[in-house]
């Protein structure tokens, strides 16, 4: 049978049109690889030109306001950054950002157990340094550095934010 004449103008079958050749595939892989490299470079540039954040000082509480094993909620450095001040012993205070480093749920202090708990996906953090003990959080909780001046506690900066 003779080939219809439209075949000469449209020689590629629809099915073949979508076919990805090895050459196209390897180019796609190379382009993706370049993208990954650019991403790493971007992280490098970002880390080199990072400006040190200037944190305000904030009076968080009077020592007498927080009993041993007591907790106080405060906001630092901004009004949208909830933090927890925890008195773990007579003379030991720690403070952490309350947003879980996984998906930003609020962590809850379990002072008696020496842990902070994120109920969203069962994340657990150590109360003494904020490190991850268990669960999906990828990083420790950001730690609010405290300074005790007489009978008052001040938040001065955040580490690991």
């Amino acid at each position, binding site marked *: 049978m003779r080939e219809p004449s439209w075949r000469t103008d449209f020689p590629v079958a629809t099915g073949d049109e979508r076919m990805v050749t090895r050459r196209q595939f390897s180019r796609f892989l190379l382009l993706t690889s370049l993208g990954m*490299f650019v*991403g*790493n470079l971007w*992280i490098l540039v970002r880390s080199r030109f990072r400006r040190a954040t200037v944190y305000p000082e904030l009076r968080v509480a009077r020592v007498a306001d927080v009993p041993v094993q007591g907790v106080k909620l405060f906001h630092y450095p901004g009004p949208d950054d909830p933090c927890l001040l925890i008195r773990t012993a007579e003379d030991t205070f720690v403070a952490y950002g309350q947003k879980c480093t996984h998906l930003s749920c609020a962590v809850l202090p379990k002072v008696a157990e020496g842990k902070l708990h994120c109920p969203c996906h069962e994340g657990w953090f150590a109360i003494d340094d904020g490190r991850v003990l268990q669960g999906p959080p990828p990083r420790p909780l950001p730690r609010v550095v405290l300074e005790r001046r007489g009978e008052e506690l001040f938040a001065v900066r955040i580490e690991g934010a």
Partner: protein
Amino acid sequence: MKSRRRDAIDGALALLSVLLVVQMWLLTAALEADLAGHHEAALPGAVLSGLLFAACVALGLLAERVHARHD
């Protein structure tokens, strides 16, 4: 001969895919470390990623050359 060439190209593509997965992992690990405040990880991450990209280019060129001979 033809099938050996095609095997070589397929092998190169498979290796390229593996390197790409390593590069993806490297990118997420570098970002994670940077966000955690370990900025010293950014430079080795970028260098390693560059090397992996160079290896990918080399493999791509190899596949291209084998392909050209095949044509």
